[in-house]
């Protein structure tokens, strides 16, 4: 059997992910995170925070909660079921930073945690920054052109 035929056969034999189930859990859990965020926003607003500050506090709270759940060992178990529902919101970013940091603690604060902490989130930060700079340049050109 040649390589192409074998690759095709292997692809046919791969068990498919249960898309409907995965999508349902992702929708429900992602929605729950967003609802929690909205609830927190209302809470911070009710406590007297301005809208901008309230949104920042929501992000900080969700990042802290996800980091704490990662440290306590809940997050990966929940993410195994919820998938993109926990991966896409800001909680996923928090988990991507805290999980390598936790694991690298055996190698020390500098060579371990310091060098490993952005192992997963690093590309998001790099390309997120590049995208924001490009957006800024385009926006500046637009403003100049618009007078």
């Amino acid at each position, binding site marked *: 059997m040649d*390589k192409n035929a*074998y690759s095709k*056969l292997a692809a046919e034999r*791969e068990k498919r*992910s249960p898309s409907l189930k995965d999508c349902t859990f992702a929708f429900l859990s992602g929605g729950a995170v967003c609802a929690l965020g909205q609830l927190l926003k209302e809470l911070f607003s009710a406590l007297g925070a301005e809208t901008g500050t309230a949104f920042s506090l929501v992000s900080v709270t969700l990042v802290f909660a996800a980091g704490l759940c990662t440290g306590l060992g809940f997050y990966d178990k929940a993410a*195994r079921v919820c998938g993109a529902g926990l991966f896409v919101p800001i909680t996923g970013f928090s988990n991507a930073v805290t*999980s390598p940091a936790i694991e690298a603690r*055996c190698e020390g604060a500098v060579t371990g945690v310091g060098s490993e902490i952005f192992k997963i989130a690093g590309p998001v930060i790099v390309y997120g920054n590049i995208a924001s700079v490009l957006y800024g340049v385009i926006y500046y050109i637009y403003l100049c052109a618009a007078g």
Partner: protein
Amino acid sequence: MCFERAYIAQCASVAGKLEKQGPLGGLFDMTAEDSYFGMDSWEQAESEMSRIAVNMLLKKASLDVNDIDVLLGGDLLNQCTATGFAANSLPVPFLGLYNACATAAESLLLGAALVSAGYAGRAVAAASSHFCSSERQFRFPLEYGSQRPPFSQNTVTGAGAFLIGQSGPVRITRALIGKVTEKGIKDANNMGAAMAPAAADTLKNFFELTGTSPRDYDAVVTGDLGYEGSALLAELLGREPCGAGGNFCDCGLLIYDRERQDVHAGGSGCGCSACVMAAYFWEKLRRKEIKRMLLAGTGALLSPRTVMQKQVIPCIAHLVEAEAV
């Protein structure tokens, strides 16, 4: 290669919590509730597990460490550190081996060759893998929340050690060193599919060279092809797959209950075939419940770097023939 006098005199196996909960859980000599094995890091934990397996083997065989002429062993960690560090506490001549998950079969094969040729009176062959150290090296941090595809495999936390000597209840009669084979598979999550052609190649070559066929064996055992890999091997050889009533079976499918345990396509890792051979098949041979078997240890010779460079996965399978005496 044929061996005149190479026997597996004794075996020892150590496994983790998930393996204890599996169908073979009661057969391992020791299972640990603590995945750290009392150590501070996953790498140290694997090393400790490997050391416990070798020491347990010596205890079971009532031997002193000085009675061993050579220790052959390996694992999945970079620079073979789990076994190397375990050997640091054992004053024995040591050869570190690496053939990914085929390391258990490789160490048995080399141990049998050294003993049969008279270069060693007693050799210890060992192999280990640890779920946590492997995840860390090959995939993501343990606490990272990700979903794995249903055809991926779960690295076995386990270590197996074999005492190879000039007498014993199980004889290693023949062995075949495998050739590196690849059939274009690049997905590191689908290692069963990558390794199946290597297993098929080694088995076919062995049957041709020796004039035997699968019918001549009570069990034709592959190392860690898992569900998808075993099905593909069956198709490549025109046989019924593992668990379909034939004599083909796979250590990766035996060690876990896929229905009950969240292990996707089954077990993998050096410790998979090492543990299952030591705890299950050696005992079956010793009790003469099976008379003759083949173990084709399968290994995917990849690294995280080669996967990132989108290279194909070269694989290997080494074969050992064992008989009840």
